[in-house]
């Protein structure tokens, strides 16, 4: 720890806690003030969307930035959480509030199966296999044509097929708050987001988090010191899957709809881009990235069809020019100062 040649991966922990608390309090205050300052339902809806993506990117960051597991199944796990929530509400007629946590648990089970299959491998092998699993899941859902049950005159596939699920229940804010329902949804999603961020912060700061970081920085040394790579990575995979699945459930309930489009590569890319632009391996990176990219996306809406093109170029450019993202760059600037 005293070796000055080591990269400054862990600054003095106490100062880090104070900074994190201050940034967190500031962001939370802004987030609580937002619905009272913003009149437009559209803008508030976009902020809800940004919260979803920030949350998923933060979980991916926990996985890749802290534990070094290069998983490309992040959106698949998110979608599994959302689909499970929708299917539980649709088929078993569970209340959405019961379906969301159950959906998150199902996402954990799914992630453990994926993890058992993939995490024995390393680095890019994990990336390729998880990507392939996500694609297979997508193909199986989209090509599902077998009737599971009849609804009126139309037939519903067990997995929802190419159309997905809709109208399986929501948070109940439309009855409760009427015109202001978006505010209610915003509050619920914000609570979910704060919960996932606090939990990831606790995980990163715990001894478990140290093991994750050790495995990322020097796998061979960590293993030699008695960290079981497979078990530890499976654990972080399952932990991040719980919160990713939870976010997926909230997403399904907020939009009252879910479809196979969530599995698409561009959606995954957007989440990864959020983490990369903000700074992989920095706690606030995904939040900053989500704000920046949602704003960029909003501006590029003017450019219409060039949106995806621009997004791709932004990702490539940031990886080359800002290897540690915006937050990493800012931290470097502060640290250089004597």
């Amino acid at each position: 720890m005293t070796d000055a040649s080591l990269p400054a991966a862990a600054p003095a922990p106490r100062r880090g806690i104070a900074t994190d608390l201050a940034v967190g309090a500031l962001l939370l205050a802004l987030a609580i003030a937002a619905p009272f300052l913003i009149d437009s339902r559209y803008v508030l809806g976009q902020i809800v969307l940004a919260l979803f993506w920030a949350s998923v990117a933060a979980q991916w960051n926990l996985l890749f930035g802290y534990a070094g597991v290069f998983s490309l199944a992040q959106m698949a796990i998110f979608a599994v959480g959302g689909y499970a929530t929708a299917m539980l509400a649709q088929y078993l007629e569970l209340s959405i509030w019961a379906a969301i946590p159950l959906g998150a648990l199902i996402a954990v089970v799914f992630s453990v199966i994926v993890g058992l299959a993939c995490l024995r491998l390393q680095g890019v092998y994990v990336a390729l296999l998880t990507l392939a699993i996500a694609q297979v899941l997508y193909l199986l859902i989209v090509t599902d044509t077998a009737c599971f049950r009849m609804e009126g005159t139309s037939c519903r596939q067990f997995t929802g097929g190419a159309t997905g699920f809709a109208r399986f229940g929501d948070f109940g804010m439309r009855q409760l708050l009427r015109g202001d329902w978006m505010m209610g949804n915003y509050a619920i999603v914000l609570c979910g987001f704060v919960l996932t961020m606090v939990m990831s912060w606790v995980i990163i700061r715990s001894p478990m988090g140290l093991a994750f970081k050790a495995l990322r920085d020097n796998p061979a040394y960590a293993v030699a010191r008695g960290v079981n790579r497979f078990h530890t990575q499976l654990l972080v995979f399952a932990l991040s899957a719980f919160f990713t699945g939870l976010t997926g459930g909230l997403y399904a309930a907020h939009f009252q709809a879910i479809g196979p489009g969530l599995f698409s590569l561009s959606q995954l890319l957007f989440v990864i881009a959020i983490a990369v632009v903000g700074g992989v391996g920095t706690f606030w990176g995904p939040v900053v990235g989500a704000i920046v990219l949602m704003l960029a996306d909003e501006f590029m809406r003017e450019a219409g069809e060039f949106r995806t093109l621009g997004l791709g170029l932004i990702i490539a450019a940031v990886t080359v020019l800002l290897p540690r993202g915006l937050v990493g760059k800012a931290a470097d600037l502060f640290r250089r100062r004597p």
Partner: protein
Amino acid sequence: MLDILTAVLVTGLTNGALYALATVGLSLIWGSMGMLNMAHGAMLALGGYITFTVVETLGLPLPVAMLAAVAAGALAGMLLYLGIVRSLLKSGGPGFETSVMIATVGIAIALQNALLLVYGGQPLRQPFAISGAVGVGAGVVPLLNIVIVAVAVAVMVAVSVLISRTRMGRAIRATAQNRDAALLMGVPVGRVYLQVLALSGGLAGICGVLVSSITQLTPGLGADPMLKAFIMCVVAGLGNLPGAIAAAFGLAIIEAAVQFGAGARWGFPVLLLLVIAILIWRPAGLFGRAQIRRM
């Protein structure tokens, strides 16, 4: 029974040849610089569309168009090196493997979207099409499939000659074996990387023409062969060229058999399960050697 066997073999061998061609391109880059090129699929699509433009718009003969596809792919590969890979290699280090993957995903999306903007989303017909069929035993084999396999095999033979017999090939192999030693022996490693990416891009170009000739031209046409080619590289052990080719043919025939037996949608899932089983059994791939990690 025999006609089903013929059909399975024809589909399997054709797809195997295409997958093999794609795996060679990917494996070359991985073997020599430890880089996974996620833009390979988009470069496949680029090759397909270039051929389409040269034949349909400029009215030039097909062989010229295929050369143009190779040239466009090679150019794209060189630009990828100069624009992205070079600076990532310089700043990178241990994070290179992942950062280059993320950067090339960005390029892939951008390139695919550019093709979409230029040519539109509706599928086009690839002018590289040969009608007719040859009767073989009990079944009928379309001439197009024979030509595809022949072209793919010819290209792979040419690549293997290039790698094993020429000065450039020797430099590529030297860099792949030990980058630092090659550098010390006076091998211009930067130029070798440029050549490897150009070569792989050219292979992607021709592979894209062949792939689109049996399917259709869409901006996303490369995604599926690329993903399967990756899987085959992984099964063989990343960077192992002959192993990747063997795995490509073997898995493509199994995939075709499953598709005929159980329906088209089960082909890829079964393939993936098989791959995962193989990797649990041999984590470094079928022909890969376990890595020795130095601390």
